[in-house]
């Protein structure tokens, strides 16, 4: 078990290293560099000597490998660099944006799990009946409508029909103003959660239907257990492995989804920070945020793997 975790940690480190190389290369392929990014059009007014001095200051002329290594060493020592656009430390920017995105993702995944597992179980326990049909309908809509359409729809509906715009006020942290914070988070979370819920619902339904035909469920009923015990301890527990897998995958997609939804709902999260930074060629910020997304993805995958071994003794290395 411990060895397994160590092996996963190592592969995680290698993955992240690979990701950071890819990010670094892609950013260098974009037109423009740190000097043009930080000075904009006014860079054209500088003399050659001034430009050369600035290039040296930002390390523009250095070989790519050297730039990469010095960046990597800085990151590993906790120095994420300074934003070219705002002159603030990248760590400060991320520190402000991270809680928003984490909250959004958590609320979305919890909503998605509630919708998905709830409707999926209801549907599987009474296939073909009303709750099942409702669930199937939700799944088709949830999987078919992209979150940016749904998000725009929700914003339009709230603002122009109900004249309700929680996003018009500046964002409130949960600990500053929980009530306003929840109003601002719940709708983008809803826009994200429908697709997640739909995917989890389908997985849950299929898994439960498959497990309910297995011998041990008959054994459980045959030995006189209460239906509730049969449903949870035998049916749901055995169906939970594909559900965990799907939830992990959705959590990964969710990170991408927040980029769009934060933009629509004007939430000052990581996604919005990333979009703004890309537009400004703010390399240090883009690099760090992307790496953070990648790290989150890898960590989610690792947690999913660990959760398997907790649920299923067959996957435990002996």
């Amino acid at each position, binding site marked *: 078990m411990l060895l397994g975790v160590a092996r996963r940690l190592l592969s995680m480190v290698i993955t992240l290293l690979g990701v950071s190389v890819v990010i670094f290369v892609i950013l260098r392929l974009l037109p423009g560099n740190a000097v043009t990014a930080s000075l904009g059009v006014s860079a054209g007014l500088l003399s050659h000597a001034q430009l050369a001095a600035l290039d040296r200051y930002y390390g523009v002329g250095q070989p790519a490998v050297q730039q990469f290594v010095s960046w990597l060493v800085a990151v590993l020592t906790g120095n994420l660099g300074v934003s070219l656009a705002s002159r603030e430390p990248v760590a400060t920017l991320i520190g402000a944006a991270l809680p928003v995105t984490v909250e959004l993702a958590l609320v979305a995944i919890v909503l998605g799990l509630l919708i998905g597992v709830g409707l999926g179980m209801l549907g599987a326990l009474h296939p073909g009946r009303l709750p099942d049909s409702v669930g199937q309908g939700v799944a088709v809509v949830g999987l078919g409508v992209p979150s940016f359409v749904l998000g725009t729809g929700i914003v339009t509906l709230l603002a122009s029909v109900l004249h309700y715009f929680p996003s018009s006020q500046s964002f409130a942290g949960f600990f500053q103003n929980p009530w306003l914070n929840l109003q601002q988070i719940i709708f983008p979370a809803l826009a994200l959660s429908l697709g997640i819920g739909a995917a989890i619902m389908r997985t849950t339904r299929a898994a439960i239907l498959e497990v309910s035909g297995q011998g*041990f469920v008959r054994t459980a009923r045959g030995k006189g257990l209460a239906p509730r015990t049969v449903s949870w301890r035998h049916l749901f527990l055995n169906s939970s492995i594909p559900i965990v897998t799907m939830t992990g995958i959705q959590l990964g997609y969710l990170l991408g989804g927040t980029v769009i939804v934060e933009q629509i709902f004007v939430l000052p999260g990581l996604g919005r920070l990333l979009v703004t930074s890309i537009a400004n060629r703010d390399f240090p910020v883009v690099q760090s945020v992307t790496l953070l997304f990648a790290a989150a993805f890898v960590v989610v995958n690792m947690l999913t793997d660990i959760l398997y071994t907790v649920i299923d*003794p067959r996957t435990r290395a002996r």
Partner: protein
Amino acid sequence: MAHPLLTIRGLRVGVGRGVPVEIVRGVDLDVDGGEKVGIVGESGSGKTLSMLAVLGLLPTPALRVLGGSVRLGGVELLDLDEPHLRRVRGARIAMIYQDPMSSLNPLLRVRTQIVETLVAHGVDRRRARERTREVLSQVGLRDAARVEGAFPHELSGGMLQRVMIAMALSTQPEVLIADEPTTALDVTVQEQILSLVGELQAQNRMAVVWVTHDLGVVARLVDRVAVMYAGRVVEHASTPDLFARPQHPYTAALLASLPRPGTAHRATLRQIPGSPPDPARLGSGCPYLPRCPQGDQECRVAEPDLLDRGPGRASACWKPRDRWQG
């Protein structure tokens, strides 16, 4: 005469939602307390489904009971609601199944699965744990302490079937339904499981219903046999009577297909020509007619009922044995 412990009358099971196809078509069976009864038949003859129907374990809505009666100690089980039926399942009638590898929950320890059975029937947790240890050593598991804490994938098929038997016995049921519990096991292990259930049956004085297609099991373990064909009991007799003088041509053919001492090595075993009828296409006549060497015109007219053929015997055949040819 005292009532039998378990009485099955005219039990019918159908498959399909709209107009169901009957695949169990009126099964009658009595089981007395402490008695060993065998149900023999080919796959698809309805023996397993009849037993699942007794416990209300048919996978509804695909399969369901269409009619008949199942009484345990005078109480009609088919009329019981789920909460009352639950007190019978596992407690008064326990069942062991064909495939022990898939009959236990792979995610729970053996201990958890036996304890939850006892707790479901009102035993307190600590007593349930003691009892679990007790039954596991009763079923001949040498290392009961290890088995108790093991997960199903860590045990062999034979050990798992022993665990299943321990679980079934833990509540001291009056009836044990053994649904071909040895088919998935190695031959040597089969032998051990058969004698184990035999011993435990005698010790606990419970009734055992053996569902099997193996006449060898029947000969050794049971007092009485019901032979099933196409969803009905076609012959019913004590074990010695059945082997000595079968009253139904199907039983006779089954017995003839057994290898006997003295059969030459590599000799071809006799088989019954044809295959069992499709339950959706049964005509009005005897369902065994197409395969029956004794059949003639009169067998086409109607399906024979189970008719008395002497004390404790019955056969669903228009032709008494003394009119058979060949």
